[in-house]
């Protein structure tokens, strides 16, 4: 098993005024390439913090973080930005699309940031991604003209268009009704199989947990349980 991400004895401490908050306490985790992993746990268990570390949005107080073979725990903000640019994709519960850009322009955005100057190449990759998420021909719509489910699909396309090592999804289904949520999860599972991209979720939603092939439960900044399940056939 090839590890795409590795955390060793990671601690994260926040200072909130006088009080110290230990978000993660000496946590270690290995995530294999192609995983479809879900983090679960009550509020305050450290899910979000863990996701931040995996996404190079933050650095640990102590311990090692390695993503795609690169150690990130000692990187400065600019290097982390560059790292995220090429290695990590994000999907959020609030979709976070840029409202003034069209769907296609939103999906193309990471490519712009990466410095892909060939407009033709960008267009090809965007179109192929939009097809893959099931939204062919909707590229010219603005986010406010799309439904919640469609917006999230665009977000997924955007996260994947740069072929990242890791896609991190923070409560991706929280703002969707159950049918749409089901659709999104099926989509991501499908992409996970076809493209082999690693997905890590953080969620309360049992639906998401059901789709995951590995479920890591957190409590009080530690791993409480780490369950692998057999791959479930897609629900109809």
């Amino acid at each position, binding site marked *: 098993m090839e590890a795409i991400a590795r955390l060793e004895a990671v601690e994260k401490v926040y200072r909130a005024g006088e009080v110290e908050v230990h978000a993660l306490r000496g946590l270690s985790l290995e995530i294999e390439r192609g995983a479809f992993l879900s983090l679960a746990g009550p509020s305050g268990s450290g899910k979000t913090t863990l996701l931040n570390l995996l*996404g190079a949005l933050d650095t640990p107080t102590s311990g090692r973080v390695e993503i795609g073979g690169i150690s990130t725990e000692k990187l400065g903000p600019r290097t982390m930005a560059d790292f995220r640019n090429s290695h990590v994709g994000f999907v959020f519960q609030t979709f976070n699309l840029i409202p003034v850009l069209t769907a296609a322009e939103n999906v193309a955005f990471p490519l712009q*940031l990466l410095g892909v100057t060939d407009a033709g190449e960008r267009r090809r990759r965007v179109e192929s991604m939009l097809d893959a998420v099931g939204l062919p021909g909707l590229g010219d719509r603005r986010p406010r003209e799309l439904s919640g489910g469609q917006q999230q699909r665009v977000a997924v396309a955007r996260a994947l268009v740069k072929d990242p090592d890791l896609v991190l999804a923070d409560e991706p289904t929280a703002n969707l009704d159950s049918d749409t949520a089901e659709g999104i999860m099926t989509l991501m599972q499908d992409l996970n199989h076809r493209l082999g991209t690693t997905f890590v979720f953080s969620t309360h939603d049992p639906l998401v947990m059901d789709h995951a092939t590995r479920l890591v439960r957190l409590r009080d900044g530690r791993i409480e349980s780490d369950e692998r399940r057999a791959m479930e056939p897609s629900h109809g």
Partner: protein
Amino acid sequence: MGSLVPGKLGPVLLLRLAVRNLLRNRRRTVLTMITVAFAVFFLHVWNSVLTGLERQSYDNLILYQTAHAKVFHEGWFELRDELPLDRSLDNIDELLMRVTEVPGVAAAVPRIAFQAHLSDGRDQIPVQGLGIETSGSDSDVFRISQAVVEGSYLPPDGYGLLLGSGLARAFDAGPGDWMTVLVRTRTGVWEAQEMEVTGVVLTGNPSIDQNSFLMGLEPARAMLDMDGRATELAIRFAGTVSERSVLERLKEALASDDGLHLAGWREQESEFIALTEVKRGGGLVAMAIFVVVALVGVANTMLLAAFERTQEVGMLLAMGMRAATVRWLFLLEGALTGLGAGALGTLVALGPIFYFAARGIDFSAMFAEDMDIGYPVAGRVFWAVTPAAILVAWLGTAVLAAAATLYAAARASRMKPAEALRHV
């Protein structure tokens, strides 16, 4: 194909984002622009009026008082407040020939400026007297003959008096009245002469209207014991030449003679010119307040916009955009706001500016005729069209608006992505 530095955006996309962000809330953008446009409008109008006053002043001075340049006796200029007769030019014809041969010179004429007392039999006051050529050549250089509002210009033999309009009013005198001129001649003797007023002139120049009378050059020479002499040689340049080059050539032509002083009109009126600059400075305070208030508006709007877009900025940073690029994005939005506002204010200002540049505003209703408003201008004031200044003000607005956005841009770029993303 070479790729750009990661985390940055190409200029086209940056511009597109900035423009679309401004359009995203049209009312807000328009309101901000209107506020700034107010300040730009007033700046343009103020500049147009002042420049118009200044230009008209300079024109007036050249047409009636200083001509384009004058030649004096070397020691006369430093004592010019006293109008000394003993420091005068004596080789008039030769000077005239030398001067008119210089290319760029249209005409030249001698004059005598002297201190005198003018009396109507009841009262007398100190004034300036001007002895001018009446054969017509004075009108080649000055425009006094066209400023006669009552009576007529001086007759060819030169006997008679033209009164400045203010003097005429003070004495309640007009054409046909007789006045006594009391002078001290070049040799120090006191002389009095009675002369008939032939006309009254109104030039707009207080130095003439309030303080001067004009008489013929030959009679003046006789009265002052100044035969063949003059206190100054006034020169008019041809229309299209560069003043500086003609002045240079004149200086060369006169260089052989040490006893001469050539002064262009700017040198003659250096004090007045300095004063106009100080007057501009005064109005600048008011303008500055307008600009500050307008920029506060821009700063506010951009700051609130930055807070509004916290989550969005967090996403941009999460996707790997450099903080500097975020900052550029906001600065660009500020600059574009300034550019649009500047365009609006400029366009609205151009209307009155062109209108009043053509028609002028008649101030005589507001100010009495003898008010010295500080500029030698009478009656109608014409605004000036100043393309260079207008352009600078417009572009300057964009720059200042960007400056006003600096704080908002800094706040946005310094957001921490992890926190910003979850901001509600």
